[in-house]
């Protein structure tokens, strides 16, 4: 090789080297995501469609053809829907107050969001079992206020489940909404009012559409977390309210029915993927 031949190929390898460096940088993460996330999920799909005799859809037929199991799927969806709806109704107005707060008040409010977010789910669910006991603080308070005469049964009811789930997943709703509301320019609402819009009209035609990206992010996150929650239903309602998550755990840990558990897992995974796909599509929609 002569010296004169060198300069020409040098430019191309420089670009190649940058690309190679980039690939080298992402390689460890790629190996983790492909090998410990994507591949096992594909394998799970495989396990759900085989049994001792080869390929089969028997697990899915059993899951989707038995009223009891359809009820279990509905229980999961119901938990997800109710939790998401209630969390949204509380979080949306609260996000506006949080965005208006200044100084130490804002720090205190943000701290009340981050502390529960960082706190252990098991600790919080355990706290709700104490709060909702028949001799617990919620019953005592209601009786002291004269709202009820005798303690009402709250723990191991659907109310307990939803209260606990809303409490635990609420920060995941308010933070994305707050992030959008905090950037909202108040002049939009003023302009709408100047142009003759009523407060209600301003809200539905200006504020709500502008904050939609935050709502979509919060709703998608809270729904996918609550629909697949395991610790919360286990501690707050138990056997009475079987969900896909508790059924999957049972199929693997007690019943040793991996095929059926895998099929239930694939259904739960399908719900999660549908939520992600839907939210991605909705946030791209031109306004």
């Amino acid at each position, binding site marked *: 090789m002569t010296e004169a031949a060198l300069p020409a190929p040098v430019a191309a390898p420089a670009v190649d080297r940058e690309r190679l460096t980039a690939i080298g940088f992402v390689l460890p993460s790629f190996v*983790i995501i492909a090998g410990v996330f994507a591949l096992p999920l594909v394998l799970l799909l495989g396990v759900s469609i085989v049994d001792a005799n080869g390929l089969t859809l028997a697990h899915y037929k059993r899951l989707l053809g038995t009223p009891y199991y359809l009820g279990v799927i509905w229980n999961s969806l119901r938990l997800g829907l109710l939790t998401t709806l209630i969390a949204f109704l509380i979080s949306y107005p609260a996000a506006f107050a949080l965005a208006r707060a200044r100084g130490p008040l804002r720090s205190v409010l943000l701290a009340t969001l981050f502390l529960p977010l960082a706190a252990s789910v098991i600790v919080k669910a355990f706290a709700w079992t104490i709060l909702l006991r028949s001799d617990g*603080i919620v019953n005592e308070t209601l009786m002291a206020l004269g709202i009820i005469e005798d303690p009402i049964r709250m723990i191991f009811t659907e109310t307990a489940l939803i209260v606990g789930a809303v409490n635990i997943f609420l920060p995941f709703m308010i933070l994305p909404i707050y992030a959008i509301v905090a950037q909202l320019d108040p002049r939009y609402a003023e302009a709408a009012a100047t142009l003759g819009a009523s407060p209600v009209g301003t809200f539905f035609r200006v504020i709500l559409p502008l904050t939609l990206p935050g709502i979509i992010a919060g709703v998608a996150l809270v729904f996918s977390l609550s629909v697949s929650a395991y610790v919360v239903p286990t501690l707050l309602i138990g056997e009475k309210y079987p969900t896909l998550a508790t059924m999957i755990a049972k199929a693997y840990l007690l019943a040793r029915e991996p095929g059926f558990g895998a099929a239930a897992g694939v259904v739960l995974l399908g719900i999660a993927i549908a939520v992600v796909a839907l939210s991605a599509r909705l946030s791209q929609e031109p306004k």
Partner: protein
Amino acid sequence: MTRAAIVVCWVMAIALALFLLAPLLVIAAASFSPTPVFDLPLTGASTHWYGKISRLDGFWPSLLLSLQIALFSTAISLVCGTLAAIAIARGKLPGAGIFATALVSPLMMPGLVLGIALLQGFRAIGFTAPWATLLVAHLVITLPYVARTMIAGLARFDFTLIEAARTLGCTYPGGVMRVMVPALAPSFLIAGLFSFLASFDNYPVSIFLADVRTKTLPIRMLQYIEEAPDPTLAALSTLILAGTVILLIVSDRVVGLHRMAGTSD
């Protein structure tokens, strides 16, 4: 906004703050209960239950295991996730957008399904040592937190600053150390904090990989709660909460809570 709407917003915000804090305050109060039942409001105070924590069956090995898994998986994810985020932010990587989505996607997937998938996968290749499987599994739990925070942090970082530092006489590693590292340190710390907490608190993945002798602290705690809930567990919960509060206060002093609000969506 109209006055009535503002009032509604504030009422909701205060109700929300009280509602979110309620379980944390109750668990702390219950831990000082003088009797074995959770007598609230307290009629006296006792630190008796704190002394009983260390005698809980299998407590120390579980605490040690959870700390080890959380520390090691966070450390590995911080290295891998930061490198990947740099490559994605530099824009020299083909398919960077898709890869960024793939990196954070485990956050939206049900943990329990990942748990059974990993159980099947590890069994299929004969990889069954509980400690090692837990560590590898927790990489998928921690990596998305690091990737999400570091990608967001790097989106605000101007790489030409490193070139500027070199023009001003820095070596390339020197430029990285004196410009890029300080700019990214806050994101790095938040990423580490959230990924540590996510691993330390994980139940749905760990439960399928643990065995009788190798149980993480959340598995042990759920077992205690189901078997015999008494104020000892409230005391243990309060100590875990206190640890979390200390981590949050330190992070707030170093980087500020507002920054976390920006990167947590």
